């Protein structure tokens, strides 16, 4: 039996040795070690694409942990063409084999390129790509008024989904639906609305006395957390999707910006306890508030829990704002990644969209938390901030 195992292993080794072509020294093997901010990108070469298609492929792959190198240094060779439609293939240079070959038809070259980028990411990493995902954000004019927008994750195809000509803020996608919660001063007071993007209809969710803001849809879409001041303090409340069954969860001193854990059990928020600004969590059913220590990242606000449950991203404030990520179980201190505010996780828990200041106006940016590769999406419709990444992978 022992011999049998040995022979099996030998046979498999022979096969793998043949496939992976040991001895090709010019190619650096990059293992995917996911260390926050310190992971080496996967080197790929790109040929045969031009214009918008090449731009889309480069953007999508860069913010998902790939780097572009000369063909001789690439671990994977990505080839193809965009004459008429996008066609492309991926060759594993070590294994000397084609691991993806596909063609795309329909809609436009941009969407085809995003779909090809998704297939490349899946072929190489086994993880679903973010090429066809959407974000929502607020776009503010110099007078403070603005509108809620949705766009592709890279900022293309922006569309206003409000026409309020009022202060708006904090869009939050309702998982599984084409719908958003957001805050608008359309009726003068800061109130919370639910907007159905497939019908254009909306309704008031919270319009109590005082301020109503920072809505966050629960992962199953059945509830919404928010900040209300109707009882005399800005505290965390939760209610059903239609606004019913309102429950106050906290009576903290300085509570703000609630978010949900992906299984819907916890609500994480920013607060102040014993004079220190902290992150904390409370059961969505109510109960004791538990501190989440963010040692080394002072004044945390705007937490966002990753869809895979592993991480909490947030903004730390010193003299400037920084995007930080820490394990959600508190097993390690936060890692400070780049300057910026209000991070929101991609559906695959690898990339963040956030905003940062350029000449006192906000611009959206996309960050791969493992390689720390970051790209601005460019200014879209004013001062663009408070991005929310739609967690559903396919639109």
């Amino acid at each position, binding site marked *: 039996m022992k011999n049998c195992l040995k022979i099996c292993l030998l*046979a498999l080794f022979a*096969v793998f040795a043949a*496939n992976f072509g040991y001895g090709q020294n010019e190619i650096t093997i990059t293992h995917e070690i996911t260390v926050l901010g310190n992971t080496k990108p996967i080197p790929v070469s790109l040929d045969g694409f031009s214009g918008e298609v090449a731009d889309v492929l480069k953007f999508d792959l860069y913010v998902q942990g790939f780097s572009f190198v000369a063909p001789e240094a690439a671990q994977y060779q990505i080839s193809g063409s965009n004459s008429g439609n996008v066609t492309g293939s991926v060759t594993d240079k070590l294994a000397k084999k*084609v*691991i993806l*070959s596909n*063609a*795309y*038809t*329909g809609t436009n070259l941009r*969407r085809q390129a995003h779909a090809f980028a998704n*297939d490349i990411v899946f072929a190489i990493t086994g993880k679903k790509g973010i090429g*066809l995902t*959407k974000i929502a954000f607020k776009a*503010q004019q*110099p007078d*403070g008024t603005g509108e809620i927008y*949705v766009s592709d994750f890279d900022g293309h195809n922006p*569309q206003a*989904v409000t*026409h309020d000509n009022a202060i708006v*803020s*904090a869009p939050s996608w309702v998982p599984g639906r084409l719908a958003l919660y957001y*805050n608008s001063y359309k009726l003068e*007071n800061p109130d919370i*609305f639910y907007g159905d*993007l*497939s*019908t*254009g*209809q*909306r*309704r*008031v969710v919270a*319009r*109590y*006395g*005082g*301020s109503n*803001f*920072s809505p966050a849809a629960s992962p199953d879409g059945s509830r919404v957390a928010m*900040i209300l*001041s*109707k*009882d*005399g*303090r*800005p505290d965390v409340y939760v209610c059903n999707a239609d606004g019913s069954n309102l429950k106050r969860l906290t009576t903290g001193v*300085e509570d*703000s*910006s609630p978010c949900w854990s992906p299984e819907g059990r916890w609500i994480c928020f*920013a607060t102040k306890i014993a004079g220190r600004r902290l992150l904390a969590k409370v059961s969505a059913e109510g109960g004791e508030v538990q501190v989440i220590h963010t040692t080394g990242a002072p004044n945390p*606000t*705007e937490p966002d829990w990753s869809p895979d449950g592993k991480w909490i991203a947030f*903004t730390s*404030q010193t003299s400037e*704002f920084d995007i930080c990520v820490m394990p959600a179980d508190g097993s390690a201190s936060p890692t400070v990644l780049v300057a910026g*505010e*209000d991070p929101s996780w991609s559906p695959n828990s690898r990339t963040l969209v956030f905003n940062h200041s350029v000449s006192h106006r906000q611009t959206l940016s996309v960050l791969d938390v493992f390689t720390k590769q970051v790209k601005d999406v460019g200014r879209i419709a004013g001062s663009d*901030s408070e991005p929310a990444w739609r967690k559903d992978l396919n639109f």
Partner: protein
Amino acid sequence: MKTTLIYSLAFAVAVTMAATGCRHKATPITPMHAGMTPPPPTEPMPPTLPPGPTFTGETPIGGIPMGGQELYQDMVQDRAALAAYTIHFAYDSSVIRKSEQASLQSVAQALAADSNTKLLVEGNCDERGTEEYNRSLGERRALAAREALAKLGVDPMRVFTRSYGKDKPVDPGHDEAAWQKNRHDDFVLLHPKPGS
């Protein structure tokens, strides 16, 4: 033993073939579908306003409850009457400074002079601080004035709050002079609608 070897080799070959892929097949084609195109939003339905609580005279833990928006939404806003009594705050603070007490007393007197009036307190912040944090901070500044007015004898059920966070700066500058001006509460006197 022999059988196991054959199986293992067969498995190895299968793995190789699966990993290599069959190169003689035609390239698969993925047809694309258009993404979503949201229609323009329709106007919001007439909002239903929940009834507000009533103040019992005690300050409960977590603040003094506030009346609903229906109690003042039809009132006439007078922004000029109390403009002189705008109060300012220290950086990242909602503590009312002693220097602002005289302004609060003037506001309290104005409310005492006409029991038909109500008050809207608008809290504001400078640009330092994240957006939703500042929305909470602005609300805390407005609520701090409301509590201080309650201590001066004003019925808190006549006082309503609203936060603009850092979205409505008085001074668009990016220096301490501008920030000082932007950390403030405005007091808006509310008169009954004529004829009501």
